[in-house]
């Protein structure tokens, strides 16, 4: 009865739950996929656990539910001590990240303590605490993060772009939700979301780093803590992505300077055009960055850079963004520079020398994206989840080497001529 009412309510709101792609699969026995990335040279042991409990499984009026559930899990008492603290006292750590189409937990510890940390995590998965006091604490923490995120100009701009290319599902909702929606979350919401989405079907466990005593057993213990069924339905919307040649969205936030974010639809990992667009993204970011504010010694984070680019391949569909931070110069100039760079790339092929440099930078970017165990295990799990394969990073490196000038030119024309412009202004400022 409750499910029927929910379906009616969602239909009235233009939101319809979509059944799993293969309905028959829901009946089959589900098991997490286990990927091994152990390496003798690593000083610690790690495990990345993906569950299909992403933003896309949240009702739109419960924005923040995925994060509240993950946070409540971290605060679940294990032998009387909250999981996160228990992991720390055991010589390790447990963190989580909520993404559009999954939530992933990252466990890490000194090799000799890893198995104990994994057992703590499995124990919390088996007996999560979604009681009212626990949920209140989790909601308070997530609300704090949501408010902080609303003051991050780059994050807000990226979020606006996501709301266009991911408009069909809830995957574009903000990772930390919104304070009013979080206030509506009840213990029943949390327990339901957990029961439906913390499951073996679609889960992936990536073991990484130093081989630890009991690592394989720990992987099996965590896998066994996930019920062998498939996840609930993704919440879809009748709102379709707009397909105009370009569009502009403007918002205001409590920020010091304007941010402009340009968003381009882009191929997902595994697609034939992924490697050429990966090179283009790197090339445009470098070209714009060098042209506007060449840092002699580049060390800043993405949010500190005056201009830059990012490839959002954590979801299918995927996108590329190019951003400009008004605190680092005139963001309108950055936008004009991007247009000029794209025009040049679309007008003619690169020389072999230019192509060689572009490929080297793209390869370097990819390697930097897997510099730590957390990065490497996420990358492998994410590529596996998206169907490209856990070994896709290696194949992508090879594919980048094979990219031709003609492929780059074609990709520039195909993917970089239509875009969304998100403008995030300080309160009181005019576009």
């Amino acid at each position, binding site marked *: 009865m409750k499910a029927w009412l929910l379906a009616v309510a969602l239909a009235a709101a233009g939101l319809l739950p979509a059944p799993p792609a293969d309905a028959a699969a829901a009946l089959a026995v589900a098991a997490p996929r286990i990927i091994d990335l152990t390496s003798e040279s690593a000083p610690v042991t790690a495990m990345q656990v993906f569950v299909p409990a992403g933003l896309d499984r949240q009702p739109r009026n419960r924005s923040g539910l995925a994060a509240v559930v993950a946070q409540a899990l971290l605060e679940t008492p294990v032998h009387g001590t909250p999981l996160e603290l228990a992991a720390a006292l055991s010589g390790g*750590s447990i963190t989580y990240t909520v993404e559009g189409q999954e939530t992933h937990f990252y466990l890490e510890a000194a090799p000799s303590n890893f198995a104990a940390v994994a057992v703590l995590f499995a124990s919390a998965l088996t007996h999560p605490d979604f009681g009212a006091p626990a949920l209140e604490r989790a909601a308070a923490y997530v609300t704090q993060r949501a408010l902080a995120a609303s003051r991050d100009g780059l994050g807000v701009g990226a979020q606006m772009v996501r709301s266009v290319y991911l408009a069909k599902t809830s995957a574009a909702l903000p990772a930390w939700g919104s304070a009013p929606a979080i206030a509506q979350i009840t213990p029943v919401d949390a327990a339901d979301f957990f029961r439906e989405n913390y499951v073996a079907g679609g889960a992936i466990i990536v073991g990484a780093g130093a081989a630890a005593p009991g690592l394989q057993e720990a992987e099996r213990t965590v896998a066994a803590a996930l019920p062998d069924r498939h996840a609930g339905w993704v919440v879809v919307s009748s709102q379709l992505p707009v397909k105009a040649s370009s569009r502009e969205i403007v918002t205001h936030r409590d920020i010091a300077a304007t941010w402009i974010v340009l968003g381009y639809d882009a191929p997902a990992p595994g697609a034939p055009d992924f490697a050429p667009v990966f090179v283009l993204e790197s090339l445009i970011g470098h070209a714009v960055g060098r042209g506007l504010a060449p840092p*002699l010694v580049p060390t800043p984070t993405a949010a500190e850079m005056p201009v830059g680019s990012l490839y959002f391949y954590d979801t299918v569909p995927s996108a590329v963004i190019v951003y400009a931070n008004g605190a680092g110069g005139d963001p309108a100039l950055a936008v004009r520079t991007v247009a000029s760079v794209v025009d040049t790339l679309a007008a003619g092929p690169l020389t072999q020398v230019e192509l060689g440099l572009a490929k080297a930078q793209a390869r*370097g970017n990819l390697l930097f994206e897997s*510099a730590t165990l957390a990065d490497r295990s996420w990358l492998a799990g994410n590529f596996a989840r998206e169907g490209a394969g856990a070994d896709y990073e290696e194949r992508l490196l090879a594919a980048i080497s094979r990219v031709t000038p003609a492929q780059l030119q074609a990709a520039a024309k195909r993917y970089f001529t239509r875009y969304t412009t998100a403008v995030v202004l300080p309160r009181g400022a005019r576009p």
Partner: protein
Amino acid sequence: MICRLCSAVLALAVAAAPLAGAAAGEHPARTIVRSASSARLSAVELWFRAPSAGFAEPLAGLAQLTAESVAASAGRREPLAVLVQDVGGRLQITTFPDAVQITAVVPAAAAAEIARAAFYDYVRPTLTPDGFKRARESVAVEAAAAGADPDAQLRARLFGALFERGPDRYAALPAVQQLDAITYPEVVAFAKRAFRAENTIAVVTGAPAGDAVMRAFGGQAAGVPAEAALISVPASAPPNSEGESAAGPAFGMAFAGPPIEDQRAATAMDFLADYLLGGRYGSISRALRAQVPDADAVGQFITLHDPGILLLEVTGDASPAVRDVVEHALAAVQRPLETQAFEAARREYIYHVLRDLQSVQAQADNLGWYAVEGSPEYAPLNGGEQGEYLTLARSLTPEYVAEIARKYLRAVPAVATLSAQTPAQASGAGAR
């Protein structure tokens, strides 16, 4: 995954050669190579023992400006900064009170090429006025960023107050006005003295096994840097330092600690810093979360030649309540922890040490830092679980840690307090 790891701290004494006759690669002071066949990134680092403010009359920022000038100068080919970018890598230049660090993280296949280029460029610097100009622009941006960073401001004030004389008194980055005072000839003179082959420690991590990288540095060597280790003299009664910050209120304390040669005591100070401030569950961090929720605390024990420094920094709030929390926590660690709490804290601390050694750059930083400070064997990465550092960490007892806390934390610390600038003050400061 097959991974062959070989770590070598190679010992081959090499006779010093006069500067004029020094060709690139003839005699690095010390070469440390830790190769791993499975690594796809390599870190190539050059460390030089040299004061950030120069060898003569102190000029804040001289080392940073000089090091960046070399990276930006097109001598025999394109500048090193461009070369590193062109192979898909990233260059980072950092100066400390007593050392200069050049780091290039590059795809492993390019490690030997970049090692050769970096070593050649630094030990036979071909500075150009254009490179000097670009470096000034870059350092000005970094200096402005540091000026708005409460951590950097606190650190500058604390170090200035804690030391009566010596390199630790001076900030690594200059104020913008100080930058204008540094001349091209001063940069050239600093480069000639600081960036000598015999004053170099070369570190490479993650490179494929083989001798290509070693050849880039001219062979194997294990001497010590030509410049003597630099010593700063703590003030007997450090003055309190107060100021304003556009980035909001902040509070910090610094204590002089044991020298690097007192390894067990230095390890105990590392443990204490982690216990007080390590992650979310450091005792100060937890107490602040409960009592002063707007405050964030960070800190570390900086292992230096002599003395080391325990640094505690709180941003977001500088009220007396913050100072109370910090002083209460500092008093508490002067009594031995209960055995169970101590064992749990040690597990956390050892995990944090290992966690921070994951990337090739972190590994190179670790090996380079301890080598330039005079105790390469003491680097936590050296020897792993069986190495000197973790052996000492496992040997700590609650009583010994408390004894070290009483010895070093009862001294008068340097204290710095920054109050939040009002918007009017901020705009006035900007107009000056």
